[in-house]
């Protein structure tokens, strides 16, 4: 009975929180297309000028999306530039996750929760929705980039192109042999997004969804500006990982911190929602 009700709630949330919000996924699809096409266009420009050995492949596209930026050191001459692709993706995910649970609670929530007769089941369903919703955004990005890669290069290149990395990401001597590079490019951004989104959902239960979104947006901007282990956006920037940067963030540390944030946010959401007044 209990499992059946959670299954029904999850089905409801996946429908209303993801399928019914297909326009948000369409925006992400367009965003990914634009980011990757601009990247390819720029690469073609440099390739024609012989400043690139070869054109970028699939993993370069993904790197372009999630690389973020190197550690910003303010020396008075260097101007701070927001890492547009990274910021656009993460801000949009934060916006899309935004107010679903509070909106749902205010719409049908009372009718549903009094029938489910469990705050735990209701919030667990929302936690599952949150994970799936974030993964779906990544799925869109990956599908778009796989299709582009297959159409342009005819293959799925799972290694970075050195000259592309040097030119666009200021990364010299990229070493992907250990497999940690793939982990840093593919897994860490996803894990970080899950942590950020769970934290955002927890905050939106306590504060208003708009405040929670603004807090996450501020953390992301501050993360770009400052390389601090306390700013979780850092863990989602591939370029700041130890694989690509001397004294960068260790993959183990990033994984532990992200998992800790997820656990704390999930437990926090469950405990807080059990005490929350539904007004």
């Amino acid at each position, binding site marked *: 009975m209990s499992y059946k*009700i959670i299954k*029904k709630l999850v089905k*409801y949330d996946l429908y*209303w929180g993801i399928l019914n919000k297909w326009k948000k996924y369409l925006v992400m699809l367009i965003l990914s297309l634009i980011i990757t096409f601009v990247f390819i266009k720029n690469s073609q420009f440099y390739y024609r000028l012989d400043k690139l050995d070869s054109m970028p492949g699939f993993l370069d596209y993904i790197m372009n999306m999630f690389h973020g930026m190197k550690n910003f050191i303010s020396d008075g001459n260097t101007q701070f530039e927001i890492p547009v692709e990274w910021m656009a993706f993460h801000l949009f995910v934060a916006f899309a996750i935004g107010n679903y649970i509070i909106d749902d609670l*205010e*719409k*049908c929530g*009372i*009718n*549903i*929760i*009094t*029938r*489910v*007769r*469990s*705050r*735990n089941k209701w919030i667990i369903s929302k936690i599952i929705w949150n994970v799936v919703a974030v993964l779906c955004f990544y799925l869109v990005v990956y599908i778009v980039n796989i299709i582009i890669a297959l159409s342009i290069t005819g293959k799925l290149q799972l290694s970075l192109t050195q000259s592309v990395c040097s030119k666009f990401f200021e990364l010299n001597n990229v070493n992907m042999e250990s497999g940690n590079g793939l982990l840093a490019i593919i897994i860490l951004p996803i894990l970080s997004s899950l942590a950020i989104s769970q934290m955002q959902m927890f905050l939106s239960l306590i504060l208003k969804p708009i405040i929670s979104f603004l807090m996450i947006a501020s953390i992301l901007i501050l993360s770009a500006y400052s390389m601090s282990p306390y700013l979780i956006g850092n863990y989602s920037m591939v370029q700041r990982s130890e694989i690509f940067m001397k004294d960068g963030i260790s993959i183990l540390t990033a994984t532990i911190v992200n998992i800790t944030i997820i656990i704390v946010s999930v437990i926090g959401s469950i405990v807080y929602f*059990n*005490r929350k*007044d*539904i*007004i």
Partner: protein
Amino acid sequence: MNIKISNVNKTIKKAVILENINLEFESGRIYGLRGSNGSGKTMLMRAICGLIIPESGEINIDGDILGKDISFPKSIGALIENPSFISSYTGFRNLKLLASIQNKISDDEIRDAIKSVGLTPDDKRTFRKYSLGMKQRLGIACAIMENPDIIILDEPVNALDENGIELVRKILKEQKEKGALIIIACHDKTELEYLSDEIYEIYEGKITNHFIVGDKSKISEEIVHEA
């Protein structure tokens, strides 16, 4: 079915919402809550539904303490403030979705509930196209469709025309005869007295008065006279 509220207190953002509430409700009766805006009627209803958690005191429903033994009453139907549903669904589809959670009633029973409030189950209009009165009627249908032991209706005759009010009276009478414990809040003093067996007056979160409604036929006459 018995609800016993003992020494319940609730403060929200430093404002006292409920203060030392002690009440007892029994099945087969209709209880009216009367009070001005912000007096605490809706909050008391929310507390009985398990939606707000008292700081102190307890709400005991048939031996189970709310928030301790159970999170929500085992069988409750509620319409609190504005009825809210999925705007792109028809009335029937909305109720079917909600009924599917407990899976206790058939489609025919959902249709019957919709008909009982004067709506058409096969109406193709979506909820967003409903008038205020239709939304209110659907909210009442949702609260009663599963024949819950406890029915809580906040301002049930809001936005309803004469025909709608008459249907609400009929529904409440039927549910009461089935043994439901019904709690309603209503601004209309005469209507509340007509509908209720007992009335509690609330002022600034405190119960200030309690009386048993007497001769209902007399009140009914008053309504007819006023109309």
